[in-house]
């Protein structure tokens, strides 16, 4: 499991260019920061109100004023800047965020995303997720391909949406898929899997890219 998460996070990290401003969701997406090449400096945005998120704060060195969006004690970079929620979300919606990496419960053929609510189950709330996927220039979904074998990449999302047609790219342990003008396209395949394996684990119809590449083995 740790290997699968590392593989997905490492592949997502390749989407980042030097100087990107990005927001990473809680969980697997947070790991992406650990796989950035040394020459790629990314400014991490924390939606509770700052740019220049560092890492997890060491025990005993926590600053009671510095948390991340999950409530954990974190550090900040020397170039950090702190602001209120109104400005934090102006950064998100205003087109100042190059990318966001989030998990998903369901994604579909049209790029619709469901990742915030399951009817009948305890509701957590959308927090900043709806703003992030509407506002970020590139929305990358980093997740395991299936939920214990059940497809998560569907023809049509059945859960309430987080946003319509917002996803640009899906990265899983099996493959990379991108939303292109001609439709959802398989662009990279991990050497452990075949195209047929991906089809079996995916409900959505997808095109196989002419120049299908191998996803880096990890």
């Amino acid at each position, binding site marked *: 499991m740790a290997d699968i998460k590392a593989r997905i996070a490492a592949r997502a990290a390749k989407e980042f260019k030097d100087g990107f401003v990005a927001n990473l969701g809680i969980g697997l997406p947070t790991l992406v920061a650990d796989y950035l090449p040394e020459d790629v400096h990314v400014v991490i945005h*924390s*939606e*509770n*109100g*700052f740019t220049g998120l560092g890492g997890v704060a060491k025990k005993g060195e*926590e*600053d*009671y*004023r*510095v*948390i991340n*969006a999950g*409530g954990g*004690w974190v550090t*900040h970079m020397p170039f950090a800047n*702190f*602001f*209120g*929620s*109104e400005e*934090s*979300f*102006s950064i*998100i*919606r205003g087109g100042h965020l190059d990318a966001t990496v989030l998990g998903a419960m369901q994604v579909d053929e049209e790029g619709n995303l469901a990742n915030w*609510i399951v009817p009948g189950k*305890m*509701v*957590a*709330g*959308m*927090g*900043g*997720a*709806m*703003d992030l996927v*509407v*506002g970020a220039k590139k929305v990358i979904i980093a997740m395991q391909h299936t939920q214990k074998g059940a497809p998560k990449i569907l023809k049509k999302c059945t859960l*309430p*949406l*987080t*946003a*319509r047609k917002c996803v640009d790219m899906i990265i899983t342990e099996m493959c990379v898929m991108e939303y292109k003008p001609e439709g959802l396209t398989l662009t990279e395949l991990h050497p452990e899997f075949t195209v047929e394996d991906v089809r079996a684990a995916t409900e959505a119809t997808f095109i196989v890219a002419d120049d299908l590449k191998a996803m880096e083995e990890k």
Partner: protein
Amino acid sequence: MKNKIVTAAEAVAAIKDGDTIMVSGFLGTGSPEILLDALVEKGVKHLTLIANDGGLRAEFTGTTDKGVAKLITAGMVDHIIASHIGMNPDIGNGALAGTMKYTLYPQGTLAEKIRAAGAGLGGVLTPTGVGTIVAEGKETLTIEGKEYLLELPLHADFALCRADYCDAFGNFAMLKATKNFNHVMAMAADTVILASEQVFEIGEKDPDFYQVAGVYVDYIVKGEKPWQI
């Protein structure tokens, strides 16, 4: 100059059953703990609470409830208007039991609804939530080919805010990630109460030392403390 400096008990004395209050903070960071303690001590009921989230319960912090969790634990809140309630299970359980109601808005929408109330705007247009259940019952406008939701202002009877430092006029500043909803909430309530770690005399510091205008602030309470980790 009118004296705005009062005790925490005096500051919350006018908050009554059924009022709508907004409280700053993000999972408790940036919340005015001494005002929340005073409000719990006073013991009002049936509040509508506007806050980003439900704060953190003592089990999570390892010490005491943090932020608005204090009000929820004390059973003082009938309705919470927030963006995220998953970190405080009392809200979900209260909704199941029928003792508490919640209304959710996307976090950026919540901030802008509050800002709109404080800025005298009739609402804001946001692309966030279009095509989702958040859009239900709301007007949608198409501007230059893009769809937006009309989100209306959110106003409160009282706002409870936290500063690192202020002056006796109420000009104030917040450091690092304690800012969150403090500025917009200080603009959007009939009565604004500010708890501050430090209170300087008027004129003691240069005006540029402060971030938010004291004209919003009605009461100042000294003695807010750093959160003990």
